[in-house]
């Protein structure tokens, strides 16, 4: 079977060659116009490349949505005394997200080309692709593509005969969600525990190995060659003024068609679910949607008439995040799913900050108690209070991410919690 599903409303820029094994090889990629952008970029000054990306309005696809070109300008301009690093974040572990894996699996050269352009633009001599350890197959494919690029003189001491030296190293993590956070990723790359660092100093000043560093997501870097090739205006034909371009929407949960669909930012969420993905499985009704991976507040069924861009989703009280849409039908046990998400965060908390270490564990414990039928009437208030103490009080946002689904699910599906607690009361009193 070809790549799972395609839809006529898709705008395929990054995902054009998904399902096409030939595009994985250097030859196949060159045949499809690959490495033309790199050649074009090498003929320009690094600052010009930064300008194109800046003007395109490309925003980081890793979740925060920070403008990529602006991030690149933070790097020191004429500092040749110390090495600079470009890190590619392929530590995709957000529940719901599965776009980077597909990008690495199907279009490794797209990633390498983007990485080399990025490295040239910020004058980095070494690119590290930090991939999560579980992604063995994508690692093998990207590793092979790096080999090919070196053999063809595309990466290495003399990038395409330009005299610029850029090395590319694939580095595998070992199973820690928190390493997707940029400073934790740097710690992990340096061979430390993956605990986030306090900012400042920001990575562009003191990042990996204490040197100026920029970290970009795989999807961001995959978009760069297309922008360099076709220009900033071309990229702006899609999306909104503040969120231009296309985005891979990772659709999972109770959908007829699951998978990655590339659409312009600002696409309507309802159409995304009911048209592109074919609606809810087994003819069920929609109950809730998580629009951006498990770390963002949950939306109820009546809240899905929103445009999927960074601003509109934020205005609706949630976040676009990685655009990982998890769809839940009317049979979903909301308490159980929230408990499962919170257990994940309790497991993945790095243990550095007390509100997160204690908070995630207590949230999980209280939710288990409610789900198990021993909930107490005051539990919901405790959950909300713990959650609010976990928000904005820690080094990174893992703690906030754990609190978000709890607070939003209590706000929107309080009846489910109440039903469990009401049923539990006699039993709890008897204990």
């Amino acid at each position, binding site marked *: *079977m070809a*790549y*799972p*599903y395609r839809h006529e409303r898709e705008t395929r820029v990054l995902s054009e060659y998904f399902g096409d*094994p030939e595009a994985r090889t250097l030859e196949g990629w060159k045949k499809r116009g690959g490495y033309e952008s790199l050649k074009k970029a090498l003929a320009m000054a690094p600052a010009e490349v930064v300008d194109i990306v800046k003007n395109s309005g490309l925003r980081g696809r890793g979740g925060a949505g920070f403008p990529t070109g602006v991030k690149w300008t933070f790097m020191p301009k004429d500092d040749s005394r110390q*090495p600079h690093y470009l890190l590619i974040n392929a530590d*995709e*572990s957000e*529940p*719901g*997200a599965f776009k980077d*894996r597909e990008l690495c*699996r199907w279009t490794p050269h797209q990633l390498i080309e983007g990485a080399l352009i990025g490295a040239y633009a910020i004058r980095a001599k070494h690119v590290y692709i930090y991939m*999560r*350890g*579980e*992604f*063995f*197959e994508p*690692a*093998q494919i*990207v*590793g092979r593509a790096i*080999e090919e690029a*070196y053999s063809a003189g595309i990466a*290495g*001491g003399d990038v395409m005969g330009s005299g610029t030296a850029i*090395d590319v*190293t*694939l*580095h*595998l*993590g*070992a*199973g*820690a969600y928190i390493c997707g956070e940029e400073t934790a990723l740097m710690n992990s790359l*340096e*061979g*430390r*525990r993956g605990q986030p660092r306090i900012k400042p100093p920001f990575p562009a000043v003191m990042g990996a190995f204490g040197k100026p560093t920029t970290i970009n997501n795989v999807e961001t870097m995959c978009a760069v060659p297309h922008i360099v090739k076709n220009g900033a205006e071309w990229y702006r034909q899609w999306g909104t003024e503040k969120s231009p371009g296309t985005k891979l929407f*990772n*659709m999972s949960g*109770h959908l007829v*068609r*699951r998978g*990655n669909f590339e659409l312009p930012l600002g696409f309507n969420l309802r159409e995304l679910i*009911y*048209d592109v993905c*074919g*609606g809810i499985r087994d003819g069920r009704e929609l109950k809730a949607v*998580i629009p951006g991976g*498990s770390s963002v507040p949950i939306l109820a069924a009546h809240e899905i008439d929103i445009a999927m861009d960074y601003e509109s989703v934020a205005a609706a009280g949630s976040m676009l995040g990685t655009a*990982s849409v*998890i769809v839940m039908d009317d049979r*979903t046990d909301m308490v159980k*799913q929230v408990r*499962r998400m919170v257990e*994940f965060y309790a*497991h993945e908390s*790095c243990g550095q900050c007390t509100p997160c270490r204690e908070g995630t564990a207590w949230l999980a414990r209280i939710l288990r108690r409610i789900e198990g039928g021993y909930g107490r009437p005051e539990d919901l208030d405790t959950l909300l209070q713990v959650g609010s103490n976990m928000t904005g009080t820690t080094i990174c946002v893992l703690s906030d991410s754990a609190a978000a689904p709890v607070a939003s699910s209590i706000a929107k599906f309080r009846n489910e919690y109440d039903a469990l607690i009401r049923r539990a009361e006699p039993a709890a009193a008897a204990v």
Partner: protein
Amino acid sequence: MSRLGEGEKAYLMAEQKTPVLGNPGFAGETGEFEHLTEADVRGTAYVGRRPPEGRDAGGAASYAYQLASKDPGARLFEGPYRERAEKIKSRYPEPQGALLPLLNLAQEIRGHVDAEAMALVAEELGLSPTYVRGVATFYTMYNMQPVGDYLIQVCTNVACNLCGADDVMDAFVRGVGAEAGEISFDRAFTVIEAECLGACGFPTAVQINERYFENVTPAEVPHILERLRAERPIRRREPSREEAAPVPAEGEPVPVPEDPGSPGRTTGPESNPYAGGDRTPPAASRPPAADRPSGEGQG
């Protein structure tokens, strides 16, 4: 509003019927994952052709490959592994950067990371063993205890959970006949729950050693286990008489051999000349083969 093409209808119908191993396993329905053989991974070319010296320091560091034939008694960082370790170290500006890749390498060879492996890695990089332990225990992929030949990780996080991951987990636990986290009696399997594997569009995602099995349904689980049992590498070395002798009576708890380096668990020198070293006796000194315990069908 749904627009379902004919092909997709047929696909959904076929999906509901759950054909016997309709799931090709490797990379879901989409890829053509090459399952590397032991010979492919044990070599030096595996981490790149470029020499460790000179400025071409790119390429992959290490792949955290999980071999089905684990060799807990193997020597680390010797023979071709020495060259691999050197290559890995050359790719980082500071030696400590190579810590995770070297632990990956140790786990690839031995199947788990024990105290001795951590000490060796520490020595290799000039770190203290306790520091290495502190790092290794932070990451979930390092097995602190030996695991079965196939480590089965079932994703039960939200996206898979919505689509019945708990049932798949139960099916694996039943099919293997051991509690989650325990090694099965035939030492073939260890089943654990995993956090999100990053394949949410293909629930339930299951990682078995380094392979992803996608769209796994409970009905498919027995077939997957059957296939893994058939694929399981043939042990070159029979268990010693002492090992094979105590057959537990029914109802008694199954004893798990304490020493992971026991000869019954290691592959012979003929299959991996770099492993074992003087820890394993030469083939001639081994006692004659005894009957293998049940479940070791490939014996």
